[in-house]
C-alpha cells in the first residue's frame, strides 16, 4: 500500500514516460475506462458482544488508461471505515502494462492464476475481506510456432511482494516475497502439458512471534481432450523451511502435496464433470491445526474446492469451509437439456479429512497418533473424518417465453468432529427446497418469486435441535431501470445468534443508465457464513440502511 504522496509521484513518472512514448507514436489509440463503487451502511450489528451500532463508508474508484500498446491503471480507495477488513485511504492499486504481439509486461499490482491454483491463485474477494494482490512485475509470452502454427506456448514469470491480511484477525498480516514461473505447451491440439515453480520467503506471525519461512512449490499438469472427453490432472509438491525462533527451537522442513483432476464429457444437450481433490499440504494431528501455522498451505494457493457454489440465500447457508491443508473429495455435476424448455442439473459431492486419530498417552495428557488407512486417497463418511456431503437436484422449465419456473432440492451434511469430546461434535444436516417463478408481461414488466424452505438439524443446539427456516422474496421490475423487492425470512430456531425469528427487508434498485446503478435497502438481515473459493467468514446479523452506487464508464 502506497501513501498518497508516493503514489502521485509514481503516477507522475508513469505519465511522463507514457507522454514521451505517445509523442513518438504515428497514430494514437486512446481509451479511458473507469468504474466506481460507493457503499454506505448505517444500522445495528449483532455480534457475540451484543448489539452495536454499525456504520461503514467505502469508496473505490478505478481508472484505466489505454494508449496504443500501454495500459495504466489506478485505484483510489477511501474507507471510513470499511464494512469488513482493513480500512484504507489512498491509492491502493497502480500498474503499468505494455502489450505487443506475443509479449505482455506489467509493473505494479496484479493477480495471477497458475494452472488449477495449486501453486498460485491470487485473487480479491471484498465480501470476505480476502486479498492476495501482488506488488511487483510479471512478464508473459504467448505464441504459436511449428507447421501451420500448431504448437502453442504460454509462459509467465513474476516476482513481487504480498502483504496478506488474515480475515479472522485483521491486525495479523503475513508478508511474502515471491518469485514464480509457469508454462504450458500444446504440441498438438488434444494435448497440453505444463508446469510451475514458486519460491517464497515469508514472515508468519503467531501472536507476537514471527516465524521466518522459505517455501518452494513444484507443480506439473497435463490436459487431454478427445471427442467429447476432457481430462485435466495437476500435482504439486511443497516444502517449507522455517528459521529457528522461540516457537520452533530447530529449523523444520516439512513437505506437503496436493493433487487435482477433472474429467468431463459433453455432447449435444448433455454435459458431466467429475472433479477430484486430494490436498495434503499440512496434514497434522488435531491439536496442531492452526490458521497461524507457518507450514500451512499458503494464502495465495487456492485450488478448486470441488463443492457447488450457490447464489441463493438458504442454499448457501451451512457451507463447508475447505481446509486446503488436509482434505480429500470428489464432486459430480451434470446438466441435461432434452429440449430448449427444460434443463436438469444434478450435483453430488463428498469431502473429508484424510485420517482419524487416537490418543496414545495413557496419562492425563494427550498425544495423538494417526490411524493409517490404505484408502486415504478417498473421502470417508465416518464422523471421525469430519465429512461433508451434498446432493442437489434442480429442474428449470420455461412454460412459454414469458413464464419460467425452477424447482430444486438439496440435502447436505457437514460434520466437524471433536476428538476431545465426540459428544460435542458439530453435526449439521439441512434439506433445502428452492422455488423460483418468473413472469414477464407487457414486454418490460417482470414479477419474480423466490421461495426457499429449509429444514435443519444442529447437534450443538442446547434445546431443540431441529428447526426450519423460510425465505420469500418478491420482486417487481420494469425494464430497463427499476426493481423493487421485499424479502421476509423466518425461523423457529430458538438459538439463532441474532436472537430473532423474523427478518424483513425492502430493496430498491434504480439504473440511471445501463451501467450506472443505485441500490437502497432497509431492514434486517440474518447473517451467517459467507464463502468465496472455499474460504468462509461469519457475517454478523445487520439491521439498518444500506446504499450501493455502481458506476461504469467505458
Amino acid at each position, binding site marked *: 500500500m502506497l501513501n498518497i504522496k508516493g503514489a502521485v509521484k509514481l503516477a507522475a513518472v508513469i505519465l*511522463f514516460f507514457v507522454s*514521451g512514448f505517445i509523442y513518438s507514436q504515428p497514430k494514437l489509440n486512446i481509451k479511458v*475506462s473507469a468504474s466506481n463503487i460507493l457503499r454506505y451502511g448505517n444500522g445495528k450489528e449483532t455480534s457475540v458482544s451484543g448489539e452495536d451500532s454499525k456504520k461503514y463508508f467505502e469508496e473505490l474508484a478505478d481508472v484505466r488508461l489505454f494508449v496504443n500498446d500501454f495500459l495504466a491503471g489506478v485505484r483510489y480507495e477511501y474507507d471510513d471505515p470499511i464494512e469488513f477488513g482493513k480500512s484504507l485511504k489512498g491509492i491502493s492499486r497502480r500498474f503499468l502494462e505494455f502489450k505487443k504481439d506475443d509479449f505482455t509486461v506489467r509493473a505494479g499490482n496484479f*493477480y495471477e492464476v497458475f494452472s488449477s491454483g495449486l501453486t498460485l*491463485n491470487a485473487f480479491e474477494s471484498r465480501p470476505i475481506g480476502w486479498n492476495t494482490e501482488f506488488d511487483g512485475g510479471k512478464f508473459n509470452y504467448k505464441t504459436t510456432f511449428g507447421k501451420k502454427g500448431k504448437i502453442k506456448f504460454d509462459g509467465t514469470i513474476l516476482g513481487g511482494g504480498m502483504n496478506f491480511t488474515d480475515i479472522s484477525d485483521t491486525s495479523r498480516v503475513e508478508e511474502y516475497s515471491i518469485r514464480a514461473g509457469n508454462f504450458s505447451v500444446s504440441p498438438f491440439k488434444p494435448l497440453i502439458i505444463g508446469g510451475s515453480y514458486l519460491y517464497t520467503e515469508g514472515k508468519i506471525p503467531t501472536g507476537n512471534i514471527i516465524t521466518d519461512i522459505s517455501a518452494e512449490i513444484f507443480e506439473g499438469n497435463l490436459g487431454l481432450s478427445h471427442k467429447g472427453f476432457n481430462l485435466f490432472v495437476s500435482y504439486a509438491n511443497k516444502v517449507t523451511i522455517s528459521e529457528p525462533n522461540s516457537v520452533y527451537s530447530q529449523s523444520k522442513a516439512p513437505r506437503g502435496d496436493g493433487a487435482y483432476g477433472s474429467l468431463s464429457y459433453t455432447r449435444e444437450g448433455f454435459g458431466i464433470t467429475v472433479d477430484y481433490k486430494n490436498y495434503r499440504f499440512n496434514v497434522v494431528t488435531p491439536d496442531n491445526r492452526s490458521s497461524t501455522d507457518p507450514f500451512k498451505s499458503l494464502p495465495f494457493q487456492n485450488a478448486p474446492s470441488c463443492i457447488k457454489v450457490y447464489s441463493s440465500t438458504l442454499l448457501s447457508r451451512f457451507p463447508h469451509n475447505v481446509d486446503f491443508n488436509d482434505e480429500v473429495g470428489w464432486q459430480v455435476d451434470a446438466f441435461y437439456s432434452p429440449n430448449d424448455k427444460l434443463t436438469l442439473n444434478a450435483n453430488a459431492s463428498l469431502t473429508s479429512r484424510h485420517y482419524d486419530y487416537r490418543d496414545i498417552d495413557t496419562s492425563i495428557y494427550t498425544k495423538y497418533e494417526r490411524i493409517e488407512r490404505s484408502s486415504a486417497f478417498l473421502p470417508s463418511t465416518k464422523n471421525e473424518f469430519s465429512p461433508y456431503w451434498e446432493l442437489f437436484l434442480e429442474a428449470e422449465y420455461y412454460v412459454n417465453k414469458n413464464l419460467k419456473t425452477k424447482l430444486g432440492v438439496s440435502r447436505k451434511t457437514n460434520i466437524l468432529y471433536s476428538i476431545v469430546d465426540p459428544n460435542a461434535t458439530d453435526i449439521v444436516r439441512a434439506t433445502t427446497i428452492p422455488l423460483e417463478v418468473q413472469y414477464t408481461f407487457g414486454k418490460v414488466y*417482470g414479477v419474480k418469486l423466490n421461495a426457499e424452505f429449509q429444514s435443519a438439524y444442529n447437534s450443538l443446539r442446547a434445546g431443540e435441535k431441529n428447526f426450519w427456516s423460510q425465505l420469500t422474496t418478491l420482486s417487481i421490475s420494469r*425494464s430497463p431501470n427499476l426493481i423493487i423487492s421485499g424479502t421476509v425470512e423466518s425461523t423457529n430456531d430458538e438459538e439463532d445468534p441474532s436472537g430473532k425469528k423474523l427478518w424483513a427487508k425492502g430493496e430498491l434498485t434504480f439504473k440511471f443508465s*445501463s451501467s450506472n446503478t443505485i441500490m437502497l435497502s432497509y431492514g434486517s438481515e440474518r447473517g451467517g457464513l459467507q464463502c468465496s*473459493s472455499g474460504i468462509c467468514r461469519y457475517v454478523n446479523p445487520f439491521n439498518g440502511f444500506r446504499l450501493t452506487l455502481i458506476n461504469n464508464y467505458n
Partner: protein
Amino acid sequence: MKKIIILSVLLFAFMISGTGFSQGYDFNLEDIDGNSVKLSELLKKGPVFLQFWATWCVPCKEEMKVLNELWGKYKDSGFVFVALSTDDQKSISKVKPYIESKSYKFTVLYDTDKSVFSNYGGQDPPFSIFLDRNGNVFKSYSGYMAGDDAKLESDINEALKIGKN
C-alpha cells in the same frame, strides 16, 4: 514535486491533443475448444457483444438464453455474440459441459484471471460490453432483469447501423 506533476499532466495533455481518438484495447483468449480468439478478428465480422458470466450466476444464464436467441436472429446481419466465462478454478471445469448441454453455438471464451473483465471495469457478473464494428464501446451493461430483451434487441439494431458502408 508539484512542478513534476503539473509538467507531466501538461505534457500528457499536449501529446494527446489534436490526435484522433479511437478504441485502443484488444485481447486474445482461448475458447472452450482450445482455439485462440482475438477481439480484432471478431470485429471484422461486425458489432461484438461481450457478455461476462459465470456458471454460478443465475441472471447471467437468463441473459445468455436471451442473447442466444437474439444472436440466432441477427448473426447473418453481422451481429457477434461472445460469452466470456469469469469462472475461476473452482468451477471452470463446468463451463464446457454447461454450454454443450444447452446446445449453444456462439463463441465462449475463458477469462479465468478476469483480466479482460477488469480492464472493462467489470465489478460483478452479469456485466456486458457492446462494441460497434469500429471497436468503440457502444454501450455497457451491469445486471440483468426480465424484460431487458426488448432493450437489447433495439441496441443490436442500432449497433448494426454504426459504421456500416
